[in-house]
Structure formats: structure tokens, C-alpha cells
């Protein structure tokens, strides 16, 4: 078995293809996973496929020993009791503040209204960023198409992930501030990290060799 007896939760989403490629290189058989879009649990391989934002939940509660998900997810769910063991390096993108191309899109509302309105899928990351820079912000949580929010006047700025910046440009937005660099990370359940130490260390060692 490729995962050495460990159960690993992998993200269906943007990181899915590269995660499967990584598992291939580790010698896992991902054929069944690639062929079954609807099946979620692959017991023989020791793999669960879940939403990226659910990976920390499965790992924290011990349904999986290990998990792979984006740093953006981990930043937003910072209260999760999981180990962050390894930076897998792929899926690179950046968490940023973007706003329409205007003279002072963040400063102007702060001066005139005392508050800047920010739409985001990452309310905690956004709130922490504005609080830590001493600015009052009203965080508007949206579930998708964040870029739309400033265009429609819902907000002054957005906090979102960007890889190439193309979606921002297409919606007339300009990056204003960088918050964090995000890549795929390997996480572990704290109890499994102790009780299955040898297996987990062997898994991480193979990842380090591959990198």
C-alpha cells in the first residue's frame, strides 16, 4: 500500500490533479480514483477524497491520519488542532487584497466612512489582516465569484486567492496588498502523529526525496 497503512484525505478541487500525480510518484495506484468521479472512499488505497475545506475537519477528528490541502484553507481554519508537517510546493497562489483601479480605493472610504467594506470567501483571514494593520473593516462573506462584489458596489475591496491575476484584471481589479503565499500542505492528526510516528515519518521522508 502506497500510504504505508495510513489513511490520507486528499482534496477534490484545484489541487486534485497534482495530488494524484504526487501519489503516483509515491507508487500509489490512483487509477481507481481517476476513474471514479463519484466514489469518495478508496479503502484499499487508504484514501478519502473530500472538499479542500473539509480536509482539516477529517484530519482533526481522526477520520484520516494525514491530509493534503491548501495553506489558504489552513489560514482560514487556524483553530484546527492539526500538525502542519510539510510544504508540498505545488498549487502556488497568493492571498491578496484587491480593489478597483482608482486613486485610493481603501483610504477614501476609511477617511469618509471610517470603515472599508471587504468581500471575501476567507472572512477570518480578511478580518485578521485588517485588524492587524489597524483599519476598521466590515467583512462581507460571499461563497463564490468574489470579483463581482466591488464591480456591483457591494464592497470597496476583496480578499481572495490569485494565481495568475488574470481574473482580477478581467474584472478591473488591481492587487493592492499581499497577505500570504499559499501552497499545498501535508497535515496530520496530533494523536496519529504520536501513535503512528514511524509510518508518518517514513511518508514525509519519501515526500522530501521527491521534492
Amino acid at each position, binding site marked *: 500500500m502506497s500510504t504505508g497503512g495510513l489513511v490520507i484525505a486528499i482534496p477534490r478541487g484545484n489541487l486534485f490533479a497534482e495530488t494524484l500525480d504526487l501519489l503516483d510518484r509515491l507508487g500509489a495506484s490512483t487509477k481507481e480514483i481517476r476513474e471514479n468521479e463519484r466514489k469518495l472512499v478508496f479503502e484499499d488505497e487508504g484514501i478519502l477524497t473530500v472538499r479542500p475545506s473539509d480536509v482539516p475537519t477529517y484530519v482533526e477528528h481522526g*477520520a484520516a491520519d494525514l491530509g493534503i490541502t491548501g495553506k489558504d484553507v489552513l489560514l482560514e481554519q487556524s483553530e484546527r488542532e*492539526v500538525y502542519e508537517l510539510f510544504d508540498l510546493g505545488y498549487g502556488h497562489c497568493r492571498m491578496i487584497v484587491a480593489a478597483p483601479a482608482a486613486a485610493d480605493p481603501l483610504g477614501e472610504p476609511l477617511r469618509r466612512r471610517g470603515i472599508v467594506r471587504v468581500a471575501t470567501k476567507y472572512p477570518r483571514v480578511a478580518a485578521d489582516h485588517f485588524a492587524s494593520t489597524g483599519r476598521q473593516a466590515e467583512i462581507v462573506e460571499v461563497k463564490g465569484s468574489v470579483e463581482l462584489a466591488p464591480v456591483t458596489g457591494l464592497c470597496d475591496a476583496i480578499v481572495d486567492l490569485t494565481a495568475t491575476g488574470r481574473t482580477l484584471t478581467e474584472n478591473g481589479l488591481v492587487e493592492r496588498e499581499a497577505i500570504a503565499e499559499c501552497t499545498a*500542505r501535508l497535515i496530520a492528526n496530533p494523536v496519529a502523529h*504520536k*501513535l503512528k510516528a*514511524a509510518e508518518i*515519518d517514513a511518508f514525509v521522508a519519501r515526500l522530501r526525496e521527491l521534492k
Partner: protein
Amino acid sequence: MIHPVPPGTRDVLPDEMRELRDLSTRLHAVFEGAGYGEVWTPAIEYEDVLRRGDESAAGAGFRLFDDRGHVLALRSDPTIPIARLVANRYAGVPASLRLCYFAHAYRSVERGSGQAREFLQGGIELIGIAGPPGDAEVIALVLGALSEAGLSRHRVGLGDGMLYRSLLAAADVPEDERRPLLESLWRRDLVRLEAQVDRLGLSPAARELLVTVPALRGGPEVLDRVDGSLAGAVENLRECHELLRERRVDDRVIFDLGLLRELSYYTGTIFEVYDPAVAFALGGGGRYDDLLGRFGEARPACGAGLDVQRVHLAQLAEESQASGGTA
């Protein structure tokens, strides 16, 4: 119409309560049998008392004012009130003291985390016995109590709360740089920790030590892999291991050199107890040689607490394992 209870609290019905009561009784019998007399402290303490024991008042989340304007806090940790009790009631008593307790503690929890705000802790405090002999007595008693409760696969992760601080000091890391590193270790973010260590520009040997030591877990062989800068802590852990071997529980020990515990009063050996069926630690504890001195006479001490409801979960898993089900 349903009348809600506050998030993080719950009602317990007879079937479960019977089992929880039975579990508490069994743990209590083991503690009393070893000479640990039960004490009771108030559920509300002056907030100052909790703050004297831990700068963040041990995570106290519920406060009120009394009729004189004093701030009271719901007990968030059982050990600090017992340190107060010992200072008040056992001043000048030179002999060692063995105390146990079963009490609810209350913490605030992060929004939506599903964690308990009210939880039942059962534990022991051993006061007046320094170093590995005290640590080993407490650890062996907790492991024995769990066996008595019917668990068979439990383990103790054993480390030293000052170990990483000693490493940072030995590597001459400037004082103001240490806190962020400890913070990363505390948050279990080993990726960030490695990046922070890399930025310090240390010698390759020092860098290697600061990155690899927190990830060392396993049998006594992991102690061989840390160098002289940790001699004191490593010597303590070896001695503790030897004493646990004499008590025939050493096969349950996993050394964990990256272990840190939440409360700030620990001064040396720390540990956590695990069962493979439960994804969270069942409990833990450690040595707190400075805590009693904050309330009165300075005396060495070590203690441990178990989350009774989590131990119950492990019991249920053990039962279903024994009856051939999946744990």
C-alpha cells in the same frame, strides 16, 4: 418547543450517566488506593487566583462580578485552585501531599469548533516530590487507572516543556526571536517553524537541531539523537523512563521531544495520554515546580488530569473492539 442549552454544553441521560459514574468511581478508587485523598474546590474562583497561576487565567471564559465588584471566574483549570488550597491549608506541612479531584472545568471555545465548554476532569496532584521519582509516580498511576478503566491500547507521550526553550538558548537565538518560534511549535506549524529557523542564519548544526528535534518521537533511541545542550532534560527523561520500567509501564511510553502544553506553569516533564480510538488526547499533565511558590511556600509538584468523557469514548471503542466490531 425546544429550549436550547448553550453551545458546548449538554445534558446526560441515565444510560450514559451510569457509565460515566462507573468510570469516575473506578478512577477514583485507583487514586484513593494509591493514597491520593479527594479534595473539592469552588467552581468559581477570584479571577486573580487563576491569573496568579497562569497569565491568561488558564483560558477562563466565563466571568461575573460579585456584589462587591470583585471579578469571579468559572474554574478553567483544576490545578491552580489546588495550588491555592495547598498554600492556604497545608502551610508548614513538610511531608509530601497526594490529592485527587473530580470536577468540571469551563473554557471558552473558538466559534463553531464543537468543543466542550464544560468538561469533567479527574486527576491527581503530587506535591513535595521533585524530579523523575514524582513524575514517574504520577504517570504510572494515570496509566494504571486507564488500564483499570478497561483500556488496553493507551500510550503516554513524554516530553519536556522547557526543552525547546533550552535549545533556543543554547543556539544563542536572541530573546525577541524566540517567542515566534515557540508560537509556531505551539500551533503545530512545523512548516513555518522551519522557515523561521532558516531566517535566523544559524550554523548548519544548530539549524538542524532546531528543525529536527521537535519532530522526534519514538522509543528511548530518540534521546540518543539530541546533543549535550539538552543534557539536563534528556537525563530527566531517561531517569523517568527507567522508573517507569520498574513499574512495568515503560512499553506505553512514546518520547515526544516536540511536545508543548497549553498552560504556562509547567517547568519540566510534560506528558499527554492517547488512545488509538480517540482523535484527541485523553488528558495530560506535567511538572510545575514554580506554581506553589506563587501562592505560598515553594514546593515541587507534578500532576495529571483526564477528560472523563474522552476516556469514556475510548472505553466504548475498546468494548466494540473486544466484541469484534470496528474501533
